[in-house]
């Protein structure tokens, strides 16, 4: 799991069937001192994380597949929590 900040969102019509109906956000993973860490990731979200929200993203593929109720989804990252502001 990693801390991240939501920097935007994306829409895709042509995609893997398991991704239909899922919100696609662009999250920038952060290091603990709030500096960008690596490239932005497309994450799926069902918690309603808004723009500039600090979230906890998780890259457990098995957890994502359970969340999406699909055995063959290529999605890996998903929003698992929205951090309360300090």
């Amino acid at each position, binding site marked *: 799991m990693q801390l991240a900040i939501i920097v935007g969102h994306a829409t*895709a019509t042509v995609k893997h069937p398991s991704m239909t109906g899922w919100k696609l956000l662009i999250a*920038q993973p952060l290091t603990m001192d709030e500096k960008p860490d690596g*490239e932005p990731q*497309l994450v799926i979200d069902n918690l309603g994380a808004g723009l*500039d929200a600090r979230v906890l993203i998780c890259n457990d593929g098995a957890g994502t597949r359970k969340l999406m109720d699909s055995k063959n989804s*290529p999605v*890996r990252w998903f929003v698992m929590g929205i951090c309360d502001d300090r």
Partner: protein
Amino acid sequence: MRIAEVIGTVTLSRCHPMLAGYRWIIGVPYSLKALKTKTAPDGEDFVILDELGAGNGHQIGVSEGGEAVMPFYPERKPLDAYCACILDAIEVK
């Protein structure tokens, strides 16, 4: 799943039998700065297996690592980058 821009395709003359007959594209991933300033992507390009028909200049979501093989479940393939979606629009603050 990183965001990448398609810059070309690759055709294989000889490959692992499990990878025969697929379409291969070359993608360059976006960094945060490239996304925010809407400039060309500046990551390191890599080859991606594509089943959705992404053309040059399209922005795609690339699934990497173990999840890239999941669409072929239960079959296992020697593969680590799969084009999971073709992005229509990207909004970055």
